[in-house]
């Protein structure tokens, strides 16, 4: 995020100001130089005599400035690490009354940062007036050598004054040159980093794949994570052979975390699908069981939710995400643990909705709550990435395997919650 915006800003200044001033600089420099040479080559040489020395000096300064700027930057890193550590560990700070220590720790890093910033400022402070010095020395030499020429009658006074004017055009470009070069350098570095990202192929494999119930499902959702060919099939067709869009038309997927964008509820449901009109949105919302609540909001389906809008409860978010999956009327519905972030009363409600949703559809429900699994025609039990049991709920409970043990534990939990 920070990388994106700061790099883009650097490139912007490269193509914006950097380019403009580079072109302008070259023109001004060349023009002034030509005019001066035409007027009086000798005097030009005199006037330019101090420039090489000053450019070298500027370069030296630049090296020192860079070095000190880096030292300052490093200390800022130290300081920010301290702040981060103490703010993140504030509960420990409180419990151990560490406030004085934290203050002292921060103060010493803060002091060092001040010291280094000032060291940098000292060199920078001598760098900036250099421009005035370059201009001044040029004028000085001109006044002295040119003045003599005028006195000797070799040069007209008007030419001398014009010369002084041209000289002013040379000073700024000389300074600007170094500055422009540094902008170009920064811009190019950022450009390289941007290209590194945009150049990255979008089919990169995800390194870590969550294990357990989520995996086989995600594996079917190309191209997020791509399964090996010939391992995952939908309706007898290998998912790796299906065109990308087709799979998503067939499969409605509700992820475990119902991520909502800071947009209206309707937009969150359609996500910009052109074929989803208001009626379809309502139909999906009714099926997902959020229509009534949404109608209760001030702006109805146009209510903006999320960070900059209305905060929805975990269950409400979940159901909006469900409506999102339903709006495409998929024949297959895949639900990844819809009970992960809802409490018991909502669980009943969602389970009730599920029954209705399953009408005329294939539903694949991933869940750790076995009460919901009771609804299924068939339960598949996964353990460490393998199918260990399969069958109807009643049969599995009777089987005394992993499923039966999990069932007992969850019943205990329910008893505790009810106590």
């Amino acid at each position, binding site marked *: *995020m920070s990388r994106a*915006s700061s790099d883009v800003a650097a490139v*912007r200044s490269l193509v*914006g100001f950097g380019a403009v001033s580079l072109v302008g600089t070259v023109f001004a420099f060349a023009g002034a130089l030509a005019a001066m040479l035409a007027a009086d080559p000798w005097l030009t040489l005199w006037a330019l005599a101090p420039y090489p020395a000053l450019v070298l000096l500027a370069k030296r300064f630049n090296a020192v400035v860079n070095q000190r700027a880096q030292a300052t930057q490093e200390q800022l890193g130290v300081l*920010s690490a301290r*702040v981060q*550590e*103490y*703010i*993140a*560990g*504030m*509960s420990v700070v*409180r*419990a*151990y*009354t*560490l*406030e004085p*220590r934290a*203050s002292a720790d921060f103060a010493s890093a*803060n002091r060092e*940062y*001040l010291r280094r*910033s*000032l060291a940098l*400022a000292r060199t*920078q*402070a*001598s760098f*900036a*007036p250099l421009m*005035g010095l370059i201009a001044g*020395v040029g*004028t*000085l030499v001109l006044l*002295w050598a040119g*003045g003599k020429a005028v*006195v000797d009658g070799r040069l007209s*006074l008007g030419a001398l*004054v014009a010369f*002084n004017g041209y000289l002013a055009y040379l000073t700024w470009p000389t300074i600007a040159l170094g500055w422009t070069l540094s902008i170009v350098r920064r811009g190019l570095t950022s450009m390289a980093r941007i290209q590194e990202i945009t150049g990255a192929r979008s089919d990169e494999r995800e390194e870590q794949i969550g294990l357990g119930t989520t995996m086989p499902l995600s594996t079917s*959702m190309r191209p*997020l994570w791509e399964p090996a060919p010939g391992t995952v099939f939908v309706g007898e067709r290998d998912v790796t052979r299906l065109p990308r*869009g087709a799979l*998503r038309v067939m499969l409605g997927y509700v*992820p475990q975390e119902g*991520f909502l*964008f*800071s947009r209206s509820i309707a937009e969150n449901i359609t*996500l*910009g699908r052109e074929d989803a009109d208001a009626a379809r949105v309502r139909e999906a919302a009714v099926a997902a069981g959020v229509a009534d609540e949404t109608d209760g909001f001030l702006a109805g389906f146009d209510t903006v939710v*999320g960070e*900059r809008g209305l905060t929805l409860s975990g269950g409400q978010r979940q159901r909006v995400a469900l409506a999102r999956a339903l709006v495409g009327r998929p024949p297959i519905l895949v639900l990844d643990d819809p009970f992960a972030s809802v409490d018991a009363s909502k669980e009943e409600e969602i389970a009730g909705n599920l029954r209705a949703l399953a009408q005329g559809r294939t539903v694949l429900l991933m869940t750790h709550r076995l009460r919901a699994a009771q609804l299924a025609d068939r339960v598949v039990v996964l353990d460490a990435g393998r199918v260990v049991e399969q069958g109807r709920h009643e049969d599995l409970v009777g089987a005394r395997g992993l499923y039966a*043990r999990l069932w007992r*534990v969850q019943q205990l*939990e329910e008893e*505790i*919650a009810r*106590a």
Partner: protein
Amino acid sequence: MPDVGHEFDDRLGRAFDRRLVARLWHAARPHRSLIAASLVLFPLISAVELAQPYLMKVAIDNHILKADWLGLTWIVALYVGVLVLLYALHWLEAYLMNLTGQRVIHDLRAALFGHLLRLEAAFFDRNPVGRLMTRVLGDVEAVSEAFTSGLFAVVADVITLAGVVGVMLWLDWHLALVTFSIVPALFVAAGYFRLRARDAYRRVRQRLAHLNGLLQESLQGMAVIQLFARERYEAERFREANGAYHRAVFASTSYDFFLYASVEALGSIAVAVLLWYGGGEIIAGAVSFGVLVAFIQYTNRFFLPIRDLGAKYTVMQSAMASSERIFGLLDRPPAIVSVGRATARDQESRAPAVELQGVWFAYEDEAWVLRDCSLSVAAGERVALVGPTGEGKSTIARLLNRSYEAQRGRVLVDGVDVREWNVARLRRHVGIIFQDTLLFTGTVEENLKLGVDGAVAPADLARAVETARAAAFVAALPRGLDEALGERGANVSHGQRQLLAIARALVYNPAVLVLDEATSSVDAESEALIREAMSGLLAGRTSLTIAHRLSTVQHADRILVLHRGRIHEEGSHAALLRRGGLYARLTELQAGPSAA
């Protein structure tokens, strides 16, 4: 309760706010001698700068035109002196302004961090670490710019302008008035710029905020976007926002360029007028050649500060926005303040070591975590607190050291309401030990002595390490107690970290120990070590142990079972098991699926 302003705050646009400048001035007051020195320097620098064109005039009129080369050499020597002096003065000026700015923000950073340390826990629940870091480290930088290239530069410019006007009038008031005839046009241009630029800059900020928000959200929701194949739709949205931002930047830049170009053009016109009128005057003998040359140079100086107004405007605008956020944070009063009254334990007191009386507590609004909860721990008693996760066990610990405050009911320590305790003393008295605690950057020894004021005898330290069963692994570290712990103790294992936390608690040695046990599991060997270390820690001490592993509470004098915001059952391990209630079920549950 409002937080301290969002990252993408967009309600600001002003470059000068009297109230904020007054606050900034207040913050800068300790360094007013530096500011005074700068203010003395400004006219000095202006004077020396303005001497240059004058010397030029003298050189031309008195020496070159009179063919006096020796005299010219003297003037040149004087010019050298002026240059050197100017260089030194400029250096001093730049350094002084930096010094002031850096010192002010050094103080501001310290004030901000100090203030954060005083704020209550609930504040940190609402304000993410990243945002607070931006306040302490990012926003202050913008404020320092106000000193180095904003406010001060404007003052310096005004002084220079006044000087230029004065010298021009003094040299030749006719010629001066002719030059100034261009000023009304200048005012019109600057006024137009100010009017337009303000809105343009505000739009840039707003659109950038929008763009950033969109980018952040798209990155967070990338999985959903890809899942529903909405990449193209999102890209389109982003392109739109990006285009809007681009247009806003272009508009604001074009105002900058408008100002720049029109001031340059007006400057050229002024010089042309000067040459036309002045040339006539020279021929008429009313004006000398040198004066005209000096005038041309003065005219350039006159236009320079106005031309660079745009840059200063931007600097001041972001400085104002940042100081608004900084002062907003500094103005937020801590909700929990210490009364500063020292409380000593009454030796005769028979009051419980800690006690909750009918406490109601919610982190937010009416979502009660504790409902009419009462419990007490007698001095010298070892009590365990158990219950399912999320019931509020840790919350009780946080109430005991007044990290949070109960909405209703009373929390007593040694029979005294925590609100009447001096907060620092309370927290020395009731030590909350997070067993899975974080380690700070520093050596092992520094981490063990955390929060202990004064010296700790090496023997005591060694004993604590021994009791905590940490001696063996500390000895195995290459530098022993002096071993530096990496960021957040990255170089010690999970189990070792728990042992260090126990050793730290032993060194801290609070009168009442509240132990919030780690939920995370460790290997069997570490588990055994930790259990031994814990019994060493609890021996002969008043303690309230919040236990997630029920196996560790069986030896407690008394076990409290928290459920639905209050104490649901209490008694010894055996008694509670016999009762066959919640505790019995929890025990069975913890035995795990394998036992079924």
